């Protein structure tokens, strides 16, 4: 029984961790290369989820909806970068906070105008609606397996993009030393529009895939944004590898905390307290991990700069 629970929760943690990675990957590049704090990253995640819900319903196909939502969010990201964010790279962190906080307000309110204040329903595709028997006596939702698969494929594709292509090399050069990359003749401006668009697309993938599992609602970006920041600070700002490790760490810790801490507390607390304390402590644990990492390794686990 407990063995099955542990496997199940590990898979859940892996699934959440991979989705966090998709969010953190774009954020860490923006942060690492341009030294830009983008609070509106979570808004792209929310937009991705809303677009997915609408487009999947309109086309009647989950897959088609996903592709369209990802492309649309990528386009929004590129436009945003081109019109606004690039004016902020040279500004101080305060201006970036103010501007991107403003973007959160605008994004949330735009969504409320376009889609209304209620939650959106987004169902898993019918083919993946049921459970799969992973081990004898251990059913696991097929859709969650699909989320893991998508996460792994996208993470692998991203890895190849960053390590094996010319563009990836430029991105890494930019993350470790912006001036040098510029001196080498890399057109940082254009490169960055592309990087930002890819980051937005990754947000959309995460938003779309998590849509059927979590609520698609206004404000969904704010919670997960902070988790993504925690991930990149743990992993080392600017490091894709760090983002992956940090995301899995945070995903696992959060899931395990939610699942096992209430059980632990039920041993010596009345149930009505135990059930409330569990999730709270799981969230606290994540911040403790971050504080611990910063204490021992102030630059994160995989510092991108020497």
């Amino acid at each position: 029984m407990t063995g099955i629970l542990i496997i199940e929760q590990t898979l859940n943690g892996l699934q959440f961790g991979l989705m966090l990675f998709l969010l953190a990957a774009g954020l860490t590049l923006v942060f690492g290369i341009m030294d830009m704090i983008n609070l509106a990253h979570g808004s792209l995640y929310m937009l991705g989820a809303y677009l997915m819900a609408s487009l999947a319903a309109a086309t009647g196909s989950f897959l088609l909806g996903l592709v369209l939502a990802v492309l649309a969010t990528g386009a929004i990201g590129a436009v945003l970068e081109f019109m606004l964010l690039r004016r902020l790279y040279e500004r101080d962190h305060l201006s970036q906070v103010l501007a991107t906080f403003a973007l959160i307000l605008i994004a949330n309110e735009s969504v409320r105008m376009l889609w209304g204040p209620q939650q959106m329903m987004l169902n898993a595709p019918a083919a993946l609606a049921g459970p799969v028997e992973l081990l004898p006596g251990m059913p696991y939702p097929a859709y969650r397996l699909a989320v893991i698969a998508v996460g792994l494929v996208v993470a692998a594709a991203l890895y190849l993009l960053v390590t094996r292509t010319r563009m990836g090399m430029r991105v890494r050069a930019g993350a470790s030393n912006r001036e040098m990359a510029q001196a080498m003749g890399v057109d940082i401006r254009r490169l960055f529009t592309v990087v930002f668009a890819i980051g937005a697309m990754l947000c959309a993938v995460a938003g779309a895939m998590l849509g059927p599992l979590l609520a698609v609602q206004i404000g969904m970006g704010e919670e997960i944004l902070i988790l993504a920041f925690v991930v990149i600070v743990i992993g080392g700002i600017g490091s894709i590898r760090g983002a992956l490790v940090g995301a899995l760490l945070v995903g696992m810790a959060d899931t395990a905390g939610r699942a096992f801490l209430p059980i632990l507390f039920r041993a010596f607390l009345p149930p009505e307290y135990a059930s409330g304390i569990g999730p709270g402590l799981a969230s606290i644990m994540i911040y403790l991990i971050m504080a611990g990492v910063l204490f021992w390794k102030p630059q994160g686990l995989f510092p991108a700069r020497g």
Partner: protein
Amino acid sequence: METQPTAARSGAAFAPRAGVALALWSLLALSLLPHALDALGQGFYIGFASRVLVYALAASSLNLVIGNAGMLSFGHAAFLGTGAYCAALLWTGGTTSAWILWPAAMCVAALAALVIGAISLRTRGVYFIMITLAFAQMLYYVVVSLKVWGGDDGINLGARPRLGLAPGFALDLADEFNWYYLCLGILALALWLSGRLAASRFGRVIAAQRENEIRAEAIGFPVYRYKLILFVIAGAAAGLAGALLAAQNGFVSPKLMHWTQSGSLMVMVILGGVGHRYAGVLGAGLLLGLEEILSAYTLHWAFWVGLTLLGVVLFAPRGIAGLFSREAAGR
């Protein structure tokens, strides 16, 4: 090439006469405001004005940290919330005197700032932003998960505390006029004190380390200690603002500690003009005023608030105070 007279400059360093006059006129105008609102039949807005004053106190305390000391704290709501919850918990425990509730809120918030600051101030730059944010979120989740403290729903207080001024006489804080003048008095006092602080020896060290931390250390200042003291002072002031907010609203909720609350306070300070002495007041007035006005016309006021903030970033980079004075620019 030749320099301006010394007297003018040393005077300008801490209390320009024009500034004093402006401050006194503003205070007079704010004193008359409730009566003006009442005369215009807009008495409802007195409560709103008090709320602005309380937020102005909270934002001004953050301005000490961001503006005076140059430390980008993204977790100031932690102290606002700590103060509010401290007052609320004492209140539900049967304490009704403001003379106990508010100082206690300040002490507990100062203690929280001492612990959080002692750890966070060892980091710099972006990492400081993130670690202060992390601590605030931790406190947020503590409060959310404690069902005995009301969890997500928070705590209802019902009434405002009792402020005894003499044996047998207490100021009736339920009266919106009294409450307004109390908030105004506290804010004015806090601003006056922070003005003194900025010009004092301590304030000079704080400004010096903002300008050049390594140099401040290299002429013999234990910079970390000074920064921590400032952080604690700001935390205590935010705690008082939290306790006032609890009394003003009649309830407290975990929302007070959420990171978006820290974000709003930060936005107020930036909007007002970082480092300007009245940045917190200007910013709180503008942001809350904008919300209030726009929400009268449209359900989607937040959209227009966002657009306005964006406009400020792009076209008034030094905040509103920067449009009118050179003080914010030079500092």
